[in-house]
């Protein structure tokens, strides 16, 4: 037992450390009123551009949890080129772990399937329906999300997002 111990120096030091923080600026952010800026690489919700999709099924095969379901059929364009048309592109978002592998294997990089949309407020009451994204939702949901929040932030805007009608879905097989 030293004399210093009797003076409770260690305890007073602790008390000083805590009270030091009392008048300081607070660290937390009051969420619904203030929102933190999302970095560009943030892996948010999927955005699909069906027009540029090659239908190569790379993302479906690469998905580590097999939640991408695709169906494609071949079609000949009026110019005589062969191309694949995506009939079905479903992602079971509620099981997704947002690893970004589908995005990274996509040969049409950054244009077709992207996770870098900066959107994160996708809470839903109905997990079975609201969190199952089919081709239409994948194409439009993120654009609508940002439209409701005053447009895309500059650092996240994809090249084709200027025109909200850029993604017009090609016809499905049965419609054609």
């Amino acid at each position, binding site marked *: 037992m030293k004399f210093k111990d009797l003076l409770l120096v260690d*305890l007073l030091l*602790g*008390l000083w*450390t*805590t*009270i030091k*923080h*009392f*008048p*300081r600026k*607070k*660290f*937390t952010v*009051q969420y619904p009123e203030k929102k933190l800026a999302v970095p560009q690489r943030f892996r948010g919700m999927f955005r699909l551009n069906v027009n540029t999709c090659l239908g190569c099924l790379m993302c479906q095969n690469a998905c580590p949890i097999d939640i991408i379901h695709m169906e494609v059929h071949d079609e000949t364009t009026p110019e005589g080129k062969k191309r694949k048309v995506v009939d079905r592109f479903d992602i079971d978002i509620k099981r997704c772990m947002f690893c970004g592998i589908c995005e990274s294997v996509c040969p049409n990089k950054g244009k077709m399937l992207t996770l870098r949309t900066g959107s994160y407020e996708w809470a839903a009451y109905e997990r079975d329906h609201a969190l199952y994204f089919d081709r239409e939702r994948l194409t439009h949901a993120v654009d609508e999300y940002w439209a409701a929040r005053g447009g895309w932030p500059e650092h996240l805007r994809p090249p084709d997002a200027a025109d909200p009608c850029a993604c017009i879905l090609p016809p499905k097989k049965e419609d054609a």
Partner: protein
Amino acid sequence: MSPELLSWMSPELLNWVVIPAVKTAVILAIVLTIVAYATLLERKVLAYIQARVGPNRAGPKAILQPLADGFKLMSKEDLVPDGAMRFLHLLAPILIMVPALAIFAFIPMGDTTTLFGLLEEPVPIFVADLNVAVLFVIGFAGLGLYGVVLGGWASNSKYSLLGALRSAAQIVSYEVPQALALIGVLVLAGSMSLVRIVEAQREMGVWFAFPGFLAFFIYFVCGVAETNRNPFDLPECESELVNGYFTEYSGVKFALFYMAEYANILVVSCLSTILFLGGWLPPFPSLAVWQHLPSLPLFWFLAKVFVFIFFYIWVRATFPRYRFDQLMGLMWKWMLPLALANLILLALVKLWLLK
């Protein structure tokens, strides 16, 4: 208030029933309000110390937070675990709450007041000035133990039982040095009446905290233990015993336990204020400068109590928790000899210096 309105009452009825009843109601209201807002204060102060904002949604500056908490707890289902003794399970929160509130009957928050001239003659701001008030306070504070032990035992849960056992052992440990610290004050004041103790400090011209510094320290540490607060919150420590004796409580019963904790903090704060910090007296009451200023007994009293409560919260935010055996060791090996030495010291002070 004119005397005609009350003239139909006999003076006995007025003095012995009506006025105490009114005072009791008023003091209860004040105490319960302070208790409710102490919970808010705790959450806010903790938050500010911990670099966050704390509750800020219920009303402006979270002013309605205690109400919201109360409504939430009251709307909860009252769960009684399987195999619990229903009667004791119900009795425990009452047993812990009632003594905590009853003590306020003896606590003087000021000498007298005319309520800013509303009353013709000054009325004392306390329900009763008992000549053995200190004994009563110690006794009632000890009664709260029954609530803890019964609550833990009646819950039919092993964690609660362990909490109750710890609590019983802890109370035996801290009450001895606490009482000895109080005796030191009694020696200085020469009375057991709380009003008289404050008067004695006025006469001496100094708060008892200065001559009785050791007693003050011991009383404070024991008070932390009495209210089961960090670093001595062993009976209810969350990380070991999952809230200890009130693990199995919910709804209103839980609210009672919760409020009793804050009521106890208030009791200890009020008592420290009265015993060591001169109650409603301003600092250094013998200074001439106080003669020219309006005496604000309630202000001084509540300010000191607030400082105390703040200190409690501050301590909770800072320190880790003692272990069960270490608490006992601290109380018996350090606090008890210290309290005895302090008692002798104060007796000598009283004998020679303050003759």
